[in-house]
């Protein structure tokens, strides 16, 4: 049994460097093919008729006029008379036509009668939820009653909340589907699970799983919302079968925002108990939220700080909205915002610097307490916290108020099961094939780096093929599991292949294979680089057949690990007359074990920060209580952060120490998106002296919080 390991810090040429992504040239030149860019001969365009009602029974469907339209090739009923739809935007039927405008015209000619039923779409006010609200958790740890009655105890009570937000991928969900006969299907989807999604098609369509070919070269964002085939995929396949031609269907922006995934809301009334010196004693929370008709679970509160005495109750509210999907670090941003905001308010009540308060209670963070301590101090240094922080009640003149806030977070990120096949060809070329996918995180790039590092070759010498279900299966890209999975599989296959290649060439060099090394494009004798063969010469010894080795990350092992911390700090200015919050600076200190590519790793953190600014300041699903529809299912009123909104971003990767390196590779996609909401909200509270209870921190919420907090902004 071979031993698998990462090269020591001193022996790495590529791993940990800033290396440009290998698919960069394709992406910047517009030649990268996303699935929506694919056209097939005879391809039709799909469109879906959706329910205008949040809750209704379908009474009848009349497709007569549409069927007679020239250019309409198939109409497929998804939910027929008698079915009950549970949210606006629910799929009723699909049309395939020769072009999009014909398909749209056809939808307008179809008459569907509904019998509207009572609905609930807005959960923020729990008292209006009636029997849609169901107890979902009631947990007690230690003795909270006693904790809240300790002598001299300081008690903080507050309300906090985050609304439902959308994933809002810039490339919507969808696919091109093409049948070959009636038993074989080709799917070109936008998916986070190239190896997994085919089985779902096979099961739903009643064809052998081996007959579904899934192919996807690039994807324009997923964030946890693109694991399954989705009704858009399965129903398009049925539609294509009926039409006898390939069908392209990608969701319209409104549908993308309504039915293709969202992050559940969470609201909570929180009570904290602490000693006057800041030692945390007790936590009580009554939380509620919705992820659609299925309600929602309790987020992991109190987050990270394992307060000794707790009472937690959670109420799940079933609403008539499109269903939740995993949103980058599921449940963590909610738990983090609720907890860190309450802790920050407690620090203010105790008149403590929150940095001191967090450090005071750092033991409650468990196994990573030393790391958090170090990361907090590093972030404080990058923010110049000691100099810049002021207490909440500091009086400043002028309408502009500045404040600082902080937050900490955690995530797992253990590598998923992943396989690859690595081939060394007799001409010296190397390719690695895997049924993985590159969400923009750099999957291709990290695989190429690992193979190149192992073989002593430049990154460009490695060809990585992914995004095809015929390749060895690799896990879905979610939960920050991909980088560990694909790099471990690649390293294992590469180590094994190199051992075999060395065994082939060792006789020619007159030494045992254990005395050989692969460096600088050569297989040479260790300590005597004059004695060796060029990589090409060495590979020619393979004869006429490629040397192919399979690599598998079994899901664990010596090359990867799980569990990271992370600290973020925010510096904001609030215009106390208009309520507009401006980000001056965000600092993110993030650990993630051994970093394969520093450039793409940092890129994940920068990207997470802008997503964080988005949900901290702008993003919010707004439902209409009268019609049951989403009012801002577009990019016009559902605002993402733009270039003008982000301020200075400082990213510090916690790396370079042996402790981190020895942990192996840990995923990074989720953790840095967890803290921004809390850090920014805390900075705003610090700036204006009161908590704005709910995200996003819109100007009217900021002003109304100031008014309620007695901070009457008497003007002029």
């Amino acid at each position, binding site marked *: 049994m071979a031993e698998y390991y990462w090269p020591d810090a001193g022996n790495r040429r590529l791993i940990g460097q800033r290396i440009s992504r290998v698919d960069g040239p394709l992406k910047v*030149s517009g030649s990268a093919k996303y699935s929506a860019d694919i056209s097939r001969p005879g391809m039709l365009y799909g469109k879906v008729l959706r329910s205008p009602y949040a809750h209704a029974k379908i009474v009848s469907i009349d497709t007569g006029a549409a069927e007679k339209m020239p250019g309409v090739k198939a109409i497929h009923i998804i939910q027929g008379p008698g079915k009950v739809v549970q949210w606006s935007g629910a799929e009723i039927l699909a049309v395939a036509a020769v072009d999009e405008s014909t398909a749209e015209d056809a939808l307008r000619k179809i008459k569907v009668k509904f019998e509207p039923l009572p609905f609930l779409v807005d959960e923020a006010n729990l008292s209006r939820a009636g029997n849609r609200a169901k107890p979902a958790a009631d947990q007690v740890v230690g003795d909270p009653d006693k904790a809240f009655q300790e002598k001299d105890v300081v008690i903080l009570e507050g309300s906090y909340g985050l609304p439902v937000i959308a994933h809002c991928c810039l490339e919507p969900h969808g696919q091109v589907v093409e049948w070959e006969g009636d038993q074989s299907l080709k799917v070109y989807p936008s998916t986070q699970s190239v190896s997994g999604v085919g089985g779902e098609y096979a099961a739903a369509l009643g064809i052998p799983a081996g007959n579904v070919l899934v192919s996807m070269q690039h994807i324009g964002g997923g964030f946890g919302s693109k694991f399954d085939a989705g009704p858009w995929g399965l129903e398009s396949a049925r539609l294509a079968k009926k039409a006898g031609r390939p069908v392209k269907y990608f969701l319209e922006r409104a549908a993308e925002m309504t039915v293709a995934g969202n992050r559940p809301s969470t609201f909570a009334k929180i009570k904290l108990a602490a000693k006057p010196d800041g030692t945390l004693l007790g936590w009580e929370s009554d939380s509620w939220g919705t992820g659609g008709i299925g309600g929602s679970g309790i987020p992991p509160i109190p987050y990270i700080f394992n307060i000794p005495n707790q009472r937690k109750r959670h109420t799940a509210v079933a609403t008539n909205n499109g269903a939740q999907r995993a949103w980058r670090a599921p449940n963590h941003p909610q738990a983090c915002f609720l907890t860190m905001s309450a802790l920050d308010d407690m620090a203010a009540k105790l008149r403590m610097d929150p940095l001191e308060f967090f450090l005071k209670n750092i033991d409650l963070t468990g196994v990573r307490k030393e790391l958090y301590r170090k990361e907090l101090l590093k972030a404080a240094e990058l923010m110049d916290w000691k100099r810049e922080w002021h207490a909440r009640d500091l009086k400043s003149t002028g309408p502009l108020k500045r404040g600082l806030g902080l937050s900490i977070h955690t995530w797992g990120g253990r590598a998923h099961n992943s396989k690859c096949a690595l081939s060394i060809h007799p001409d010296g070329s190397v390719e690695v094939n895997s049924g993985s996918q590159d969400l923009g995180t750099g999957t291709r790039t990290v695989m190429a780096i690992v193979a190149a590092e192992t073989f002593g070759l430049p990154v460009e010498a490695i060809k990585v093929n992914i995004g095809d279900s015929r390749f060895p299966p690799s896990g879905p890209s979610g939960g920050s599991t991909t980088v560990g999975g694909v790099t471990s599989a690649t390293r294992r296959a590469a180590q094994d292949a190199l051992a075999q290649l060395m065994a082939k060439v060792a006789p020619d060099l007159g030494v045992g294979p254990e005395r050989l090394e692969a460096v600088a494009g050569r297989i040479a004798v260790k300590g005597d680089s004059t004695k060796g063969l060029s990589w090409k010469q060495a590979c020619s010894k393979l004869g006429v057949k490629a040397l192919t080795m399979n690599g598998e990350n079994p899901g664990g092992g010596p090359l990867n690990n799980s569990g990271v911390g992370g600290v973020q700090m925010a510096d904001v200015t609030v215009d106390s007359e208009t309520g507009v919050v401006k980000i001056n600076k965000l600092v993110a200190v993030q650990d993630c074990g051994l970093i394969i590519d520093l450039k793409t790793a940092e890129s994940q953190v920068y990207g997470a920060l802008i997503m964080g600014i988005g949900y901290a300041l702008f993003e919010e699903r707004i439902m209409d209580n009268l019609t049951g529809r989403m009012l801002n299912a577009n990019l016009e009123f559902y605002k993402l952060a733009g270039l003008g909104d982000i301020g200075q971003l400082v990213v510090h990767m916690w790396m370079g120490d042996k402790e981190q390196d020895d942990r192996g590779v840990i995923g990074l996609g989720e953790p840095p998106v967890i803290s921004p909401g809390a850090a920014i909200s805390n900075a705003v509270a610090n700036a204006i002296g009161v908590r704005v209870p709910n995200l996003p921190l819109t100007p009217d919420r900021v002003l109304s919080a100031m008014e309620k907090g007695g901070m009457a902004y008497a003007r002029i």
Partner: protein
Amino acid sequence: MKDEKIDVHFILNGRDTTVRFDPSLRLLDVLREELFLTGSKEGCGKGECGACSVIMNGQPVDSCLIMGYQAEGATITTIEGLLSDGELHPLQEAFIDCGAVQCGICIPGMIMAGVALLDERGQKATAGLRSEPAELSLEEIKYGLAGNLCRCTGYVKIFDAIRQAERRLQADQVAAWDSGRLGAAQANATIDAAARERYLPQTLDEALTILAQHGAARRALAGGTDILVKAKDGLFPTRALFDISAISELHGIVDQGDRLWIGSGVRHGEVARSELLRLHALALVSACALIGGPQIRNRGTLGGNLANASPAADSVPPLYTLEATVDIVSLGAQRTVPIEQFFRGPGKSILQPTELIRGISFAKRPNLKGAFMRLGQRQAQAISKVSLAGSAVLEGRRFRYLRLALGAVAPTVIRAPQTESILLNDDWTPKTLRAACQAIKQEAKPIDDLRSTREYRREMCSVLLERVMVALTGPP
């Protein structure tokens, strides 16, 4: 149902191109579906995300908000056209090198907007309008890319890439690197007769004839930044539209002596850059500079902003403060209406289906100052929650002329007459300003909507008034 296909001629990535297509296609569809140039992406179809950006006649535009036939005679560069002898443009290389690319879906549009920004910068440098070697400021980059959204990469690396490319272009002494070079070919082809008759009138009479014959069944299309968004929502079929942007009678900013005349086809970007208007209508120039991002400003027109009749239209409050008149024409008739009588409510105006706005005019006033401020949902590319324009002539401590107009706080843009009279009838002092700031809250009739609340809007009228007044004259 389908209309007959039409031939459209343009220069695409340096080549004379003729494409025959269904007139209901947008430029983005023509590129992607007819020409298989799939580098331009569709993110929203409404000009919000910029993923479909191309450079048209030297300016970045959203190809999802342009009908295919509006490309007639234009010079267009797409992401595919940036390659020169197989070499990437310095900005493309910089995007790779700086790590400014992640999932990549927004990147072609981002790069096209960036290239346009660098071209403009280079041309200014060549023309001596910009001192060397000052580099683009962060604010200039933010302004130039405000029409593009990215969901996953983080923007900072995009700023780095623009800077790196700028340095490369300067070092290589190709500061005026110009995607316009691709316009070397000449689009000489004559316009398809069927296309001209139905979609591309070349004179005002041709356009008015279409309206006279079809009335409300046809609608004039200029910048498309509002009307194509409504078409995307299915409010009316795109085949009802026809293009009026080629009509020369609707263009130009003309000094008529005691008045200025602006053609209805003049785009927000032209207004924002006009030195003549900066001199005589600063509030209007400030407002147009804040509309949308570059792609929207390069298409949206003043006439379109009026015809759309949104109470939140940013160009309208300044025109109220200039006491502008609207010059309206129909076949064989014309009328002139004060701008305050033009609007009837949200989306409603006095414009008849057979009429077009020819232009807008207003009196020149010596020493007129102007200011415009607004609050939106975010820094750029956002519809105003509340806006306020002011135009004023201050002599000593007395205002000789003062007009204030509020946007997005009533069914139409409104003047603030009580507030104006407080300011006009007293010396300009802190006390007068305080009284005015109180009064203006009573003049607004705001509502709750998606973007904001009634209370917030009312309060902000007062905040904006103070800031606009200080911007107009300095503190009292």
